[in-house]
């Protein structure tokens, strides 16, 4: 466990309550990215969010991508960092790089 917040348990509770839930997991980091590998965020179609995958820089974009996996029902790897074209929209101000795996709970 990386911290005291039990995101998987929250995701499970939401799923059991009938919510559509997606999970985002930091799988790799470079440089000064704020959250280590293993950090998680859970989101629901209804707009609930728990946990984080950065210092708040990319959560919005990750949440949107995670929710899209609810339709595709397949996991997807996201790259964020200063070399990424999306850096203009949702970059990491710290200059770090991070990979985030998003997937639906099915």
């Amino acid at each position, binding site marked *: *466990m*990386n*911290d*005291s917040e*039990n995101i*998987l*348990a929250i*995701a*499970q509770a939401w*799923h059991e309550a009938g919510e559509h839930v997606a*999970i985002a*997991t930091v*799988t*790799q980091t470079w440089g000064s990215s704020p959250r*280590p*590998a*293993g950090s998680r965020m859970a989101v629901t179609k209804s707009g609930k969010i728990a946990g984080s995958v950065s210092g708040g820089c990319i959560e919005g974009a990750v949440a949107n991508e995670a929710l899209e996996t609810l339709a595709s029902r*397949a*996991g997807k*790897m996201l790259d964020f960092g200063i070399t990424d074209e999306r850096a203009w929209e949702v970059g990491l101000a710290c200059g770090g790089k991070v*990979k985030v*795996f998003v*997937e*639906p*709970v*099915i």
Partner: protein
Amino acid sequence: MKQSLLAALIAAQAERRAVSLALRLGDGAAFLLPGDPAPEAVIQEAADMRAADRTGTVEIGGESWFIESRNPPPRLILIGAVHISQPLVQIAAAMGFETIIVDPRRAFATDDRFPGTRLMTDWPDDALDQLRPDGRTAIVTLTHDPKLDDPALERALRSDAFYLGSLGSRKTHASRLQRLAEAGFDDTALARIHGPVGLDIAAVTAPEIALSIIAQIVAARRMPARRARAAA
């Protein structure tokens, strides 16, 4: 993530079982280890990473794997159900520690004072024999009473606990070290005890002292990994 895997991960955590989640990034296939039939090299790497409490992406057999180590929470054993123990339990919980309080004085160790915390009213040496502190355990003595603190420290010094701390002034600590030296512990052993306990943040109130203790425990837990990275 399949609901069944999610449930299995949460069950392992509830039972304090150390497990790994191995995700093959090429196709998203997930394995719960030990147990699921992953390639042998992945099972081995996951076991090594679990032992080192590491999580990350590794290349195995030409494929990328995300391997997450899910160890049970570290433990904090407090000797003394004293005033400082109350904020200490709360801050330790926020840091992800499971706290156990040991105090044979039943007036102190009450559920009223420590709701939801595991309390043991055994003598500290008996309690530590039962709890068997390991390399993921921190022990702090808080009673100032040699009758309670000393037997705990003697047991703690013979354990692999990653952190030992003892509340008390410099003078109290000096006489404590002298007693333990007379009991046969050498300087290397005694140097493991942080005393006076806590980082020096000029703490005054009980919550501030608790904060200084937890900060020192976090440093003891995390600093070795940073030193290893710096050396690499």
